[in-house]
């Protein structure tokens, strides 16, 4: 879906998409901002790459240092990955540059600086997925069979089915732990999306095998939203819901995961074992938001997202002509992000008036 939006933006005659660009400075005011940006070099020219894949074929490293990031990447161009490229280790390999039929690869590109003159600025920098390693007791990063919701989503996308990362077997019992990185001391907010994606993943798991037992540990189930209550109703009977989120996961000698939780119906601490534990990680503010806030002169809210001028979420920052769109302002699901994004466009139109039709 994001790919579709990127494609639409790239093909739009009145949108210029600058990739690898970082904001460095700002001056001026509403209607007449001067924005300084720096563009980091891309070794593969997106305008010339035809995604033929010859470079990837000749690349001698394993894994390949030049590749198509995903089959439906937009733009459909190869990228050079500094982590694996021999040149990054001082070697003088130019195989991909030599084989490229369109001369799209060029190692000697320099960073470029560019000034832009704009009337308004929309900040839509999104969020970071909460790093589950911060909750050390849940074992993410230590136990191979503790995944995040995002890991599981990637696995379904890439392999089309769920297998245990440890032994490639089909799991028989799976636990989801909600609110990992949401609704705690450091995150006094609900991430809006985790209950929905956990339920969606649970539905996919049940679709793969009806024998798989799925348990969801939760604080409050967020079943509001268009059509979600009905979706929830359809799966309610197939999934075991347990109130309260576990705080500790340990791996047993046999490789199973032992989850310690409070069984409130019995009023005591229980232990249950699962083949796989999925952490429903939440939406966190981007850690580099501070840099952007400083350059733009906009405020940050207590929770680390960008602050709005009024208490209810609108698109306006405290600085005229600078607007917010999407999750950089606070957690949102897809529909809310879309509405918020179009809302930012409406604020810009009110400020600048309708664009003059360039080609009309």
């Amino acid at each position, binding site marked *: 879906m994001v790919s579709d939006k990127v494609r639409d933006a790239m093909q739009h005659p009145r949108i210029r998409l600058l990739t690898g660009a970082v904001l460095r400075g700002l001056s001026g005011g509403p209607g007449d901002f001067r924005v300084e940006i720096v563009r980091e070099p891309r070794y593969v020219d997106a305008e010339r790459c035809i995604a033929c894949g010859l470079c990837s074929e000749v690349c001698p490293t394993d894994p390949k240092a030049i590749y198509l990031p995903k089959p439906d990447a937009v733009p459909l161009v190869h990228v050079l990955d500094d982590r694996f490229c021999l040149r990054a280790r001082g070697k003088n390999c130019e195989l991909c540059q030599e084989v490229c039929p369109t001369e799209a690869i060029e190692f000697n590109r320099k960073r470029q600086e560019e000034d832009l003159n704009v009337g308004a600025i929309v900040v839509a920098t999104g969020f970071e997925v909460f790093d589950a390693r911060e909750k050390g007791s849940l074992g993410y990063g230590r136990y191979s069979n503790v995944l995040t919701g995002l890991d599981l989503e990637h696995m379904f996308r890439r392999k089309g089915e769920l297998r245990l990362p440890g032994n490639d077997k089909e799991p028989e019992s799976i636990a989801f732990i909600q609110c990992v990185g949401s609704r705690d001391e450091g995150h006094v*907010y609900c991430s809006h999306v985790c209950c929905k994606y956990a339920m969606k993943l649970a539905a996919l798991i049940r679709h793969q095998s009806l024998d798989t037992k799925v348990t969801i540990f939760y604080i409050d189930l967020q079943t509001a939203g268009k059509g979600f209550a009905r979706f929830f109703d359809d799966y309610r009977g197939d999934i075991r819901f347990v109130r309260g989120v576990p705080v500790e996961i340990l791996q047993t000698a046999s490789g199973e995961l032992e989850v310690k939780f409070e069984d409130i119906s019995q009023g005591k601490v229980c232990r249950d074992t699962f083949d796989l534990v999925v952490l429903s990680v939440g939406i966190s503010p981007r850690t580099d938001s501070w840099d952007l806030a400083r350059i733009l002169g906009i405020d940050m809210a207590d929770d680390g997202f960008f602050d709005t001028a009024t*208490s209810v979420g609108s698109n306006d920052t405290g600085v005229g002509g600078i607007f917010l769109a999407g999750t950089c302002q606070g957690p949102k699901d897809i529909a809310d992000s879309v509405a918020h994004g179009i*809302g930012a466009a409406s604020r810009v139109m009110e400020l600048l008036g309708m664009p003059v039709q360039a080609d009309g």
Partner: protein
Amino acid sequence: MSVNDMEVRTGVFICNCGQSMKNIDFDALAKKAASVPGVISVTLSSDLCLDEGMKRMISLIRDGSVNRVVIAACSPDSKEHIFRHVLETAGLNGNLLSVANIREQCAWAHKGDVTGKAEELVRMAADRARLLRPVERRELPVNPDVLVVGGGFSALSTALGLSAVGLRTTVLEREAIPGTGTGDKENLQGFDVGSVIAAAERDANIDILTSARIVAVEGVLGDYTVTISKDGAEISRRCGAIVLATGFRTQLAPGSDMPIDDQVASGARVVSQEQLVCMLNNSVLDARPRTVGFVFDLADDSSRYTTLATLNNALAVRARWGSEVYVICRDVKVDSEGAERMYQSARECGVVFLKCDSALKIAVDNGRIAVEARDVFLGEDIVVSCDLLVAEELPFAADGAEVLGSLSGVRMDSRGFYQDENVHLYPVGSDRKGVFCVGGCRGNPDIVRVLADVSSVVASICGLLSPGHIEADIEKVKVDPQKCVACLTCIRVCPHSAIQLMRVEDGKDAAVISDLACDACGVCAAICPAKAIEFEGYRDDEIAAQLEAIGEACMGG
């Protein structure tokens, strides 16, 4: 002379993608392509999508030697728009392009030699190209005025937003005074509806018609004619877009109420959130309730509105009355902006939350209301005895929403609210182009989301109507009036209300498709029993030609 009348001269441009498709014999492919009827030129290239590669295509089109283009290259998903643009800048209609995907669906999909399949794909594309017809794109004039249905917060905010971008609106309020139906629903979420009404009444771009309701909606995006009944008379307004902003109403959940007789006898009361707000605002209330109970999220899984109202009001009750507050719910719906913080504040200031999975028992006990619930954390039945119970409410679309929906061509969702065009991608749009839904009437009752809806509908309409015209494909899908038997099948199935029965030239009635309202989904063309509807690019003869090409290629070995 139009392209239709000219002799077909197809140019085939084959790209080997930097010689990366090694499992296709391109010389053989080019030879085969040259033998397809209508093909007068075959060009082999290794970088067709780059400026150098396109040069020959442009010059062949410019000098008139080619009037249909077949491209055998990568997926149309990645480059078709570029090629279409090249055709148009070189002076050929973009619809005269046919793409054979010999990369993703051929060379990359198989191991071993796939020259045969590539030949087949090129043959199919070339046979289809022979039959392609141009589709003209033109700017069609639209009426930039907007009709907003509803007179509450979301309706008037939309009108004010549209006025700010220079668009005029007519606001239809069913009641005699704007905002009557809204009551205190927005006020109790911290919004001043009164000031919005006052601003809208002052605005020269906004015409508010009170005691008015819609009787009929005719026309399409850019040119709607709406018949309105006002004070017993029918008036008509023309507009380019319609916004439904009729809000929502609530009703006490079944079983959460208590007979009025019992309430009077005991002096204890069961109220709604709105009634509570009135009581809170009434400074001369003599007896402040000692204990206030709230119930929500037991009967309704989508209780964002009641959750936010409860959190707001529980805080207000603690602050103004100092009463003990007990909240009984299943889950706290905190997936709204600021809700988690409010929930935290409520607990910090002494509001007690009891989580309960089963039904409540509500009874009068010794002059007070006894609410019996099984608390899941304690595992015990708890009785909350209160002077005032704020009962659970269920949200519903406003009365008459369904009638209005059917008049304006908007479907209802499973809960009786208006259905979005796409719940993720385009939440405020509806199936009918130019008809939008905002706020409570589409099931979004909380104020933050209402405001986002309002801004996004303003931007959408501004983008559509402000220029005064919309560019559209002309007769991409069209009805042949001679073949049409006026059976109305297409009108019934069209999800976009784009087809109308009209009197055509020779006095005959036939279906006519509006170019502005049509979304080119093709449903009508597929279903028409008289085969009177043609969808350019997917006409029966074009598809048949491709199918026949498969057969011929197979026969030919």
